């Protein structure tokens, strides 16, 4: 069934057991993002130390895609330096916009390749990107603060 390309087992697993979904109080930036068309919301706390993602945690409500995607993202970027994290983000964004034509670089994306099917469902791309956009925003805000 076409649906299975969207709801891969790993997505359902992350949905049932989201990683880092408990806000850690120490952070260099806290961001709150919403998806106005469906009302999904996410709060994300990020702690950067130098160029490194020292800690990342989140809370929010959303569909399986947004929850799983955020969970997978946190696992991917935790402990990475910003440059590598942004490379993953770029690869993931490209995958989402591929309209089902790409499968994603598994070395970079790891579990996130399971989200490849989302790219065939335009209405869901925003769900998959919600957490990632929050992460990007949090990095920029942290860097702004540190730059001050």
């Amino acid at each position: 069934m076409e649906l299975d390309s969207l709801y891969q087992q790993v997505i359902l697993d992350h949905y049932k057991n989201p990683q880092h979904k408990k806000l850690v109080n120490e952070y260099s930036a806290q961001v709150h993002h919403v998806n106005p068309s469906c009302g999904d919301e996410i709060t994300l706390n990020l702690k950067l130390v130098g160029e490194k993602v020292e800690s990342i945690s989140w809370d929010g409500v959303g569909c399986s895609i947004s929850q799983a995607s955020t969970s997978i993202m946190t696992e991917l970027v935790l402990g990475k330096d910003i440059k590598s994290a942004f490379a993953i983000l770029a690869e993931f964004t490209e995958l989402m916009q591929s309209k089902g034509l790409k499968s994603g670089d598994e070395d970079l994306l790891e579990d996130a390749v399971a989200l490849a099917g989302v790219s065939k469902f335009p209405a869901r791309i925003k769900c998959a990107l919600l957490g990632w956009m929050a992460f990007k925003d949090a990095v920029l805000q942290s860097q702004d603060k540190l730059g001050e």
Partner: protein
Amino acid sequence: MSSKFTPAQIRNDFPIFAKVMRGNSRLTYLDSGATSQKPRQVLDAERNFYENHNAAVHRGAHLLAEEASEAYEGARQKVAQFIGADVDEVIFTKSATESLNAIAYSLGNSDPKSKYALKPGDRIVVSEMEHHANLIPWQQLAKRTGAELVWFEVDADGRLDLSSAADLINVRTKIVALTHQSNVLGTINPIADLAEMAHKVGALFVLDACQSVPHFPVNVSQLGVDFLAFSGHKAIGPTGIGVLWGKSEHLEAMEPFLFGGSMIETVTMTQATWAPAPRKFEAGVPNMAQAVGLGAAIDYLQNIGMDSIANHDSELTGYALEKFSRLSGVTVIGPKDNKDRGAVISFTIDGIHPHDVGQVLDQYGIAVRTGHHCAWPLMRKFGIAGTTRASFYLYNDFADVDGLIASIEDTKKYFKV
């Protein structure tokens, strides 16, 4: 089904039902609350306008301009007759959203000495079940004028809490703006009573009739309201056309909203005076083909009969409510009894996000809407992020409800809840 018409035959008039959907399924369209599908008759009317009569109305000295004006004004006549109004009280807008904003802006443009002007201390009354289109314009008007925005609460069953009515609608109240039927809950509000209360304190009553005019007979003078707004696209009409109806005494006295061609009486470089309504409120070359399409939509609906459509809607809703009551882990958000209730059923499934529900239903060709339905405060009131909403119309039948129910069961299985 005891309807006087057969949905399967109706569907033959609507080309989109020939479409093959995801999973190779046929289309079960349960999203008419967002927008309705269009019959061939409406599309033909629009096309005929473009192919045979297209010209700028009210302006040219030529045959096409005459014919275009006749077609456009003919559509106005149809709308007026449809809602029991005078023809000069019917204003074409692009949507109900524009209609509602137009009222708020026009009132806001009033001379401070006018009885239509709002000032600090005045009150605007809305409700927790309003669509954003009948909430934010009033928030903004309140902000601009210093008036206070107050609201009816919604009870657990999804009805307006009327116990506060006398409190809310008092001598300070200038405007009461309410929806006829909630687009989320299906609740139909007791408008005539509330309009009477509003008038007793000298307030204007604004009716958001987006979900009512397409579905059951609505008569402005029977309801006793002052303004009414609806969209053509929810009433099997084209996109890009809405109606603002206002009592002529108000339209005469009120300031215009959009300024430009065709709405003027005289113009100099420094000032302008206005044409009488409805022209005063229709600046620019109007959405002529869409008005004509709406006229054809009204013909189509009236041909079937609004009473028949209302009966049909009610039968489907009653049938569906009964089926929903037997689903475990599924909660209907809104009245469970079928009295004063429209053909909209919002529900949640324990453990599955509405977006995921919608996605699975889509795989069966079932089109529903998910999310907050532009009624975010109502979602907060019910403590939910959103709902899945099925809404019915004249092309739906019992089989569509059965398909929905079966697919909800499948969704639960798919997500193992």
